[in-house]
């Protein structure tokens, strides 16, 4: 298999669950203030922007941190810019299907701030923003579903990394435009359920919350199917 085949998880209407492991790369690039952050954001690879805006989702899998991305956390805690930090924290990441759009929006917020702010505030030495990036290694799991019941069972058992991969990585990092589950559900005759999962903003839940939410939606679909039989 080569990288072109990444995430080809649907075979003969079976849903094959994959998972992925992340390697964190260091870019050796630091920012000390908002201007430097804005300049760096324009130049770092898209995998870096993805990493800094999605890392929290997996690391804090049972709670939603106050600052759901590294940029807002740093702006708030190391620069002490509460208002700007909140603006960056509240960014509606779900609306972006392409990291490049997210990059543009982040830079726009920072540039708007810079236009209105005459003086720059540097962080204290040692608290610079260190740019990271990541690469993913995708591996198959033993979970395969060929109907809704098996799908629900797999969602309950699959690792949080597998759910994360199909919900977030497929949609944004692998640029499929939608999550893998919705794509499969559409091909298996559940467009309503697929739309429901597509509309649901996973960024505002913890990963365990997402698991529960999917199971809940699938259960309701199964109950509705049973009632109409």
């Amino acid at each position, binding site marked *: 298999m080569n990288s072109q085949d*990444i995430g080809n998880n649907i075979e003969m209407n079976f849903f094959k669950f994959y998972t992925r492991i992340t390697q964190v790369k260091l870019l050796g690039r630091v920012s000390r203030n908002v201007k430097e952050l804005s300049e760096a954001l324009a130049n770092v690879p898209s995998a870096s922007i993805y990493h800094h805006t999605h890392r929290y989702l997996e690391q804090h899998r049972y709670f939603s941190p106050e600052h759901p991305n590294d940029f807002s956390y740093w702006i708030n805690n190391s620069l002490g810019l509460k208002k700007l930090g909140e603006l960056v924290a509240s960014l509606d990441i779900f609306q972006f299907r392409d990291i490049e759009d997210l990059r543009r929006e982040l830079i726009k917020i920072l540039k708007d701030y810079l236009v209105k702010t005459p003086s720059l505030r540097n962080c204290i030495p040692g608290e610079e923003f260190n740019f990271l990036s990541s690469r993913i290694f995708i*591996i198959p799991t033993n979970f395969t579903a060929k109907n809704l019941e098996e799908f629900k069972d797999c969602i309950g058992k699959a690792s949080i990394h597998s759910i994360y991969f199909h919900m977030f990585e497929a949609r944004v990092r*692998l640029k499929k435009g939608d999550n893998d589950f919705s794509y499969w559900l559409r091909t298996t005759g559940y467009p309503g359920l697929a739309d429901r999962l597509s509309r649901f903003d996973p960024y505002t839940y913890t990963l365990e919350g997402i698991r529960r939410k999917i199971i809940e939606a699938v259960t309701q679909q199964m109950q509705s199917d049973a009632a109409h039989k």
Partner: protein
Amino acid sequence: MLHINEYRSIVGNQVIDELYILAEKLKGFSITNVNSTAMGGGVAEILNRMIPLMRNLGLSVFWEVIKGDDVFFDITKKIHNGLHGVEVSITRQEFKHFLEINQKNSEDFKNWADIMYIHDPQPIGLVKKRKQFKNKWIWRCHIDFSKPQRDIWLFLKKFIEKYDASVFSAPAFSRRLSIPQVLVAPSIDPLSDKNKELEQGFIDSVLSRFGIDKDKPIITQVSRFDYLKDPVGVIKAYRLVKKYTDCQLVLAGGGAKDDPEGQKVLKEVMDEAEADKDIFVLLLPSDSNLEINALQRASSVILQKSLKEGFGLTVCEGLWKEKPVIAGAVGGIPLQIAHKYSGILTYTVEGTAYWIKHLLHEPEYAKILGQHGKQHVKNNFLITRHIQDYLLLFLSLFNRDDEVNL
């Protein structure tokens, strides 16, 4: 000797199964680790534990130790200090001697592998051999690299950039380099003597041996007697707490022997502790892992009030035991603690005292912090994650894509 499968009960089958899948992709490759000491020090400790586990996964992993004279190790000690901001002077002659020892080792060396994994600066010059063997080379920096002295950095950089990849322990250690840099955080071994589960009877016997009252709250800091660990600040925080809540303080550590500064710090700590019978300053031998484990497990609150820190793995050790940990927000500590969720980050003696009181008075909240902390360590800082990172690192030498389908 522990087998990798024994970690299944701790991290789950999936994590171990994934390690086997990754290792399978590395079948046929040989890997040789090279460092400068077989015993003592963090690098030797982790290699001693990790290499047998990697072999369990089917990997051909070897470990070689370079040889050097006293002058060489004096120079490498200076390099070590110069990398984390201490002003040192290394002469041309010393740099030359450093290179000669590396050259001599490379001539005597037999175990050249497909992947050469070089740990820390001491054997860094072996990479000169890469042209001859056309193999892959990784340089792993275990030490605090936050403020490297310029001449030392420029000297090392010439070698580092000859490698295929470099590895650092914290984002702040990263530098502008022409080769890929990978982040691999340190780890703890949950089945080691320092971290494994202990019988309550053993814990009680350790307390009794040191004269510590098991029925009175215990605040503990385990660390070397070093200014940067602020043991005197810990005593001051304890005194602020003691005014309101009866408790005991345990300061346990080693490192004072053969270390003039350590002895000075220890004396200051003893002076500060004076005749307080509830302060226990324990100078423990380096093999006191079970005792340290017992002291941590008996504690109500664990401190790591560092003023400067490389990574600060004692925080992970405390969290793994489900203890509420209060630590200085320095070095790698904020990576281990999310403030008020999986522990407490503080900056001052007063702040530390405030949170000790709070946690002693609110044991339910303290318990939740400990539970979250343990989960965080389980997800991010166990030896199995460390092995996984290394396997990915080896695989990444052969595939530079950002998305790799295995």
